[in-house]
């Protein structure tokens, strides 16, 4: 578990639920103390490029470090920033996904519907638009919107995180059967859980630890944006609980902590979708 008191964390599979909640992420601007990564943090120049490329290709930060230079769990988020930029654009374009969503998912596009990564992006974009539409009816819709690239940036992260990534083993009752859940599926699950909390929007998430090893202890880092006007500490706690609950239901990960960082505050309107 992180020692950083600014993060909302706490989750132990051995207990009845998330029981180790420490103080929440009470400020939209995270404390620079500890290993926290802020929105404008830049990755360490030492080996960052190689490591980011390795992460972009599905390696976890710890393994990626072996390919590049030393990267700690706390660096993962900053490395992910770099990986978003470094990742090759080898899938269905986000523009095509957005157009497909505009058309009501008709006619059926198998390149999107049959591809877990593209489908994860589609669902994330749909949730983002849902949030935007909801806000149109709120008073906050009248206030200035964030930079148009904001949602596009979130979608870039979704795109990266939705890749299959590592394979996380599940217990099998047959010796000739191997069961896994992909890291991309788990990241999608984390995003969906976080986005389901009113007022929260997941910016990025990472599973830190050797997930390919059964029973290995991992931590989950979730960075969120909070809707303007929402109390951030209860929001962070709610996101943490939702993520922990979903992970417990859908995976066999031994999660030591779910660390939620409120990294941004957002106000959206219909112009804030970055052209998507």
């Amino acid at each position, binding site marked *: 578990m992180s020692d950083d008191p600014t993060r909302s964390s706490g989750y132990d599979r051995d207990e009845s639920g998330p029981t180790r909640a420490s103080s929440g992420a009470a400020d939209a601007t995270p404390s620079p103390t500890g290993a926290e990564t802020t929105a404008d943090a830049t990755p360490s120049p030492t080996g960052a490029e190689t490591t980011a490329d390795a992460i972009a290709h599905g390696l976890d930060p710890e393994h990626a470090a072996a390919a590049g230079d030393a990267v700690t769990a706390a660096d993962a988020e900053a490395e992910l920033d770099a990986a978003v930029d470094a990742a090759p654009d080898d899938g269905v374009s986000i523009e095509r996904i957005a157009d497909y969503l505009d058309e009501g998912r008709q006619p*059926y596009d198998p390149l999107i*519907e049959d591809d877990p990564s593209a489908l*994860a992006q589609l669902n994330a974009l749909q949730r983002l638009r849902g949030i935007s539409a909801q806000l149109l009816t709120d008073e906050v819709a009248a206030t200035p919107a964030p930079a148009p690239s904001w949602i596009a940036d979130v979608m870039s992260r979704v795109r990266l995180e939705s890749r299959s990534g590592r394979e996380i083993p599940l217990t099998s009752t047959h010796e000739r059967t191997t069961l896994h859940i992909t890291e991309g599926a788990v990241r999608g699950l984390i995003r969906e859980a976080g986005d389901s909390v009113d007022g929260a929007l997941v910016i990025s998430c990472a599973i830190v630890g050797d997930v390919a090893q059964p029973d290995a202890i991992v931590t989950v880092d979730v960075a969120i944006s909070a809707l303007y006007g929402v109390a951030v500490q209860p929001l962070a706690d709610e996101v943490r609980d939702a993520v922990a609950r*979903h992970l417990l239901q859908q995976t066999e990960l031994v999660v030591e902590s779910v660390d939620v960082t409120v990294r941004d505050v957002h106000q959206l309107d219909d112009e804030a979708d970055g052209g998507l």
Partner: protein
Amino acid sequence: MDDSRLSQLATELGALAAGTPGVVRVQARPGFATVVRRAVDGLTSVVGGGTGLGGGADAGAAGAAGGAGAAGAADVVDGSGAVATVTGPSAPIVGIVVTKAETRITLDIAVSDEAAGPRVARDVAERLLGRLAVESELVEPSLDLRIVGVGSL
């Protein structure tokens, strides 16, 4: 077992998996035969595992390959329905790789967010292995299953 029969079996297993409570979609793993081809000696047949486009007929397209069969396997992966006209969701299919020593079933699934993913995966495995157990021609059936999505994915 000939390739036509294997194709039918792949489609049948896909339907069985798709019908398991908690499963929202089933698909063959893209490129699985390419990986198998590199790893397995004595590959005799591969079905499924293409793009899954065009419904069951194309998705279950079979390719026979005697001996090592590498070229045949590659043809199946690259050619199964890739240019087919698609009008709706593809049929749920699984990949089947047959060697002299083993019959390997490979598939990816997405599960409902209301179900418990690990349990659903085990239920699917149980169903498929139960079905394969009655196929006396298949050697040592084994299963490789991944959850690639949760919720509506």
